[in-house]
């Protein structure tokens, strides 16, 4: 039974990895901690539930990471995906601290996989959680319970009373009942607003109705909005989000990782009007998969169709929902509900432009088109061997980039540039400080763990002083 009449040292708003890392760290430092999770027990953990790994610096091989991954390479990777939209000081601090993230999580009962046999060859840069993010979340909650952290499920933090950068109390909805929580320090770890369709609609209009939310439906951004409205400084482009190519038939929310499709490099992709719109073979998929959600979001109807033939079927991971399958392109177009004549022409034009080469599925090969706009730079093979396949695609949003500004000690910065006296943040709600655009696999969990630990340390110190 959680006591809501007492004054808690630290209130953690949120229930994913970033919130739990913060709560556990603050509790270990001696603070009394109340963690408030919007989701019910079965759906707890925010987007962490859908994650799989975290990216960690390591100068030498460890039990969970191969070879080495040093600061400069990590920084270069980040610089490339963000196109420079990052904060170098915060980013490098986070990269350096990432070295200790796996050990911290292990100390919280998280088990890592020894190595990976899957298709994304990330075992050099990323440490994989055994069983994935939900297993991690389970371990963290178990540790939190053992440490005596108060945990409320089905409870949303709806409002924080902020006076001159100082948070005094929170209004929460606990199983639908309004309650007040008093605390000495706040850690905001309640994620972005990607599941808030009305908010997305402000920037994207009706297109927002066609966006699939890959992760938790509880990422409503209520705390983010509340803090920004009370003079907290914002970072990140509010209109932008990270999105991947999802199966168009996926659930609109919470479909998770298995809904993503990575057939694009081996396919020809057309939009609803049966026009190609981007080079499908620009680069290896791990480097390119993150742009396709946005590309599809910009197409009419927010839908696209990836067409392959039987040669390509085993070059990518199987999809949960079977692709449309037909013995002719025209029949395939009929199943997908697009113009058959146009699709036949697109495929014929493409086939005519394919140049001979040596197909190598795992690296950029010399199979490309010539005289085609847009080109297909790699993995371009004739689409001529029935049965033909078509995967319908829609954008699946992973997270939004808008966030609260923080210092290198995870302290929230107010709009006037002054640090908040007792508010800290970790996870997606502040990831925009470092990730201005793009994404690096496993970096969200790194930011969550690193800033979670910092926020926990700082909040506990704040309480002691």
């Amino acid at each position, binding site marked *: 039974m959680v006591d809501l009449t007492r004054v808690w040292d630290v209130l953690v708003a949120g229930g994913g990895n970033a919130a739990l890392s913060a709560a556990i760290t603050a509790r270990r430092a001696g603070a009394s901690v109340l963690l408030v999770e919007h989701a019910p027990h079965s759906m707890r953990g925010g987007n962490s539930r859908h994650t799989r790994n975290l990216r960690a610096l390591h100068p030498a091989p460890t039990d969970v990471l191969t070879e080495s991954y040093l600061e400069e390479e990590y920084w270069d990777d980040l610089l490339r995906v963000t196109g420079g939209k990052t904060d170098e000081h915060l980013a490098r601090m986070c990269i350096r601290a990432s070295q200790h993230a796996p050990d911290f999580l292990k100390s919280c009962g998280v*088990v890592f996989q020894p190595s990976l*046999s899957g298709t994304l060859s990330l075992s050099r840069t990323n440490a994989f959680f*055994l069983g994935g993010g*939900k297993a991690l979340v389970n371990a963290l909650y*178990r540790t939190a319970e053992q440490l005596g952290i108060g945990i409320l499920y089905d409870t949303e933090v709806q409002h924080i009373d902020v006076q001159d950068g100082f948070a005094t109390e929170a209004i929460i909805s606990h199983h639908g009942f309004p309650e007040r929580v008093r605390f000495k320090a706040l850690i905001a770890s309640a994620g972005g607003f990607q599941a808030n369709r009305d908010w997305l609609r402000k920037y994207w209009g009706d297109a927002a109705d066609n966006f699939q939310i890959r992760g938790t439906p509880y990422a409503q951004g209520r705390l983010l909005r509340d803090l920004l409205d009370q003079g907290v400084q914002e970072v990140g482009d509010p209109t932008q989000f990270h999105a991947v190519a999802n199966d168009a038939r996926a*659930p609109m929310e*919470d479909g998770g*990782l*298995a809904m993503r499709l990575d057939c694009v490099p081996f396919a020809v992709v057309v939009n609803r009007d049966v026009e190609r719109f981007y080079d499908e073979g620009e680069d290896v998929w791990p480097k390119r998969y993150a742009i396709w959600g946005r590309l599809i979001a910009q197409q009419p109807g927010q839908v696209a169709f990836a067409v392959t033939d039987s040669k390509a079927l085993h070059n990518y991971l199987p*999809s949960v929902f079977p692709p449309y399958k037909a013995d002719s392109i025209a029949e395939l177009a009929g199943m997908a509900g697009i113009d058959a004549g146009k699709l036949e022409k697109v495929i014929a034009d493409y086939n005519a432009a394919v140049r001979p080469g040596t197909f190598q599925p795992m690296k950029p090969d010399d199979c490309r088109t010539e005289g085609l706009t847009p080109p297909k730079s790699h993995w371009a093979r004739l689409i001529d061997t029935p049965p033909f396949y078509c995967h319908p695609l829609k954008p699946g949003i992973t997270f939004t980039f808008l966030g609260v500004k923080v210092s290198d000690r995870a302290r929230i910065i107010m709009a006037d540039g002054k640090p908040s006296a007792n508010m800290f943040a970790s996870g997606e709600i502040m990831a925009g400080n470092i990730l201005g655009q793009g994404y690096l696999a496993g970096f969200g969990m790194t930011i969550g763990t690193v800033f979670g630990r910092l926020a926990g340390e700082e909040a506990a110190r704040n309480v002691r002083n």
Partner: protein
Amino acid sequence: MLQENETTAEARRHMAVCNACRYCESYCAVFPAMTMRREFSTGDLTHLANLCHGCKGCYHACQYAPPHEFGINLPVTFAEIRAQSYAHYAWPRAMGTLFERNGTVVTLAAAIGVTLVLLLTMALVDPSILYTAQRGEGAFFRVIPMWLMVSLAGGTFGYAIIAMMIGGIRYWREVGGGAPAPAPLVDTAVDILTLRNLGGGGHGCNDVDDSFSSQKRWLHQAAFYGFMLCFAATTTGAIYHHFLGLRSPHPFFSLPVQLGTWGGVLLCLGTAGLIRLKIITDPMPVAKRLVGGEYAMLSLLFLVSATGLLLLVVRHTGAMGVMLALHLGLVLALFVALPYSKMVHGVYRGLALWRHAREKRGSGMVAAE
């Protein structure tokens, strides 16, 4: 081959999600075996279901577990398919129906076994033997004649072995096991003897809830090795009798009694512990329809070993006769029920592990592990 039905369709739906997710790849043999396939015939599903040890790691780690709309619950789905395969490959075929309401079947077998042996004893020997202390060489056989003991136990055990072998052969052929290869048998033996797939990669399984423990692995080992020791006790007893001319009851520190005692203790501990785990475990990843048969078989094994130990304790008293009849009746029931109970999982699990070991070698996955 198993008929297509709701459960196989459900398992195929599960495989579609799991094969696109693959987060569980390091838990056990099921997931590497799954990734080798894109299409799942009922034979493949039967193979994967029997490869599953029911550790429940994949359920507790699953982002798609209920109440998610995908409702992924592999431990339950595979347990259902396993049960269907036990019934389907039972020999004679008609006996497969005994897997329905299996708890009742096993309990009835136990009751009938005990009653039968008691009645036979009373009919064949002076009923007062049942209540009077019997000492010295051949004491047991004064209660139950040796010819009867050997023919009952030997006959039922022999029948069980034959029935399970026929089931195993039919399973292997229909599921598509291919030509049996001897080399992977070493891997298979290691998998079975160490219960590697209940290791979860070293930290254990989700025996009770989402925390990890090795309880189920240790308890199953206790039951398994206890059973094997009891079997060894009987075998050495027979060797003593027929080749060394030593007649039971043997002294406490003799080999057969020592093997039987420790085997019985382990079997008691293992089965009692497994029953406890079944009671306290999170019921969500458990196929409720099937637990009756599992409780009944675990209880029968417990009673067999407990009465065996009690027989040792009371063997020089007037309670020996009844205890012996009770023990033999339960052993008889165990042997009769063997091919039509949860115990057949050993046959099909072993075959599934054997097939998996060969597939692993074929795909070069051994080096990757």
